[in-house]
């Protein structure tokens, strides 16, 4: 996590937010400042649909602003193997005592009909919204 925080100020802000408990109500300004870059998922037994996707997230940069505005409630980006691989971290961080996960992810994704090799760093961390724990995912292309 420290190495990610050193790479980018948004990662540093997310790490600080997470260390202070990751509660959106307790740190509204910090949470709001992250939203442009943040993706949030609501994992359950049935999947991990998008609860939020900021326009400056890597998904926003890859697929465009119009695309991410329609993502809320969608199960995934329709890349099943990729989704299965990345979803495990969302489930682990919302488990009791779940800890943030920092990773480098590389995958070939279909972006509006073009296959692209995508590589990025991500920090996945629990976010408390009232009594619900959801998974925040902050990313940056590597």
């Amino acid at each position, binding site marked *: 996590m420290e190495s990610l925080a050193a790479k980018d100020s948004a990662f540093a802000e997310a790490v600080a937010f997470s260390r202070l408990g990751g509660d*959106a*109500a307790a740190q*509204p300004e910090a*949470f*709001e400042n992250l*939203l442009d870059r943040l993706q*949030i998922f*609501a*994992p*359950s*037994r*049935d999947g991990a*649909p998008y*609860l*939020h996707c*900021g*326009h400056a997230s890597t998904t926003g940069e890859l697929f465009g*602003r119009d695309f991410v*505005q329609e993502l*809320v*409630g969608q199960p995934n980006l329709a890349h099943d193997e990729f989704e299965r691989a990345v*979803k*495990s*971290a969302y*489930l*682990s961080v*919302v*488990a*009791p005592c*779940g800890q943030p996960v920092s990773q480098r992810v590389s995958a070939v994704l279909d972006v509006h009909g073009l296959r692209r090799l995508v590589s990025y760093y991500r920090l996945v961390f629990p976010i408390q*919204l*009232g*009594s*619900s*724990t*959801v998974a925040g995912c902050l990313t940056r292309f590597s």
Partner: protein
Amino acid sequence: MANLDFLRDELRKLLREAQPISEQAKRQAVQETAKATHSELLLKYWLKENFATTNLDDIEGFALDRAMRYMNTVAQMLDHEEPQEKTGSARG
């Protein structure tokens, strides 16, 4: 419990058919749902991205209906989000 849910759904259906919902009632429903699900900041961001405002009073008609659908989707996800105490270990 299932019976109660059925009755509640029926009531909602009847209310919908009996009288159109005012725009103010829609705004109130969106705001109350956001508050109940602690997603006010997500709603604020969504409004800004989609309608260049953070004030629900600035939108109406189709835009307001879209805000209702957004809020309903968010509420369903947070409602379905199950604490891990119920689901056991879900580490992948």
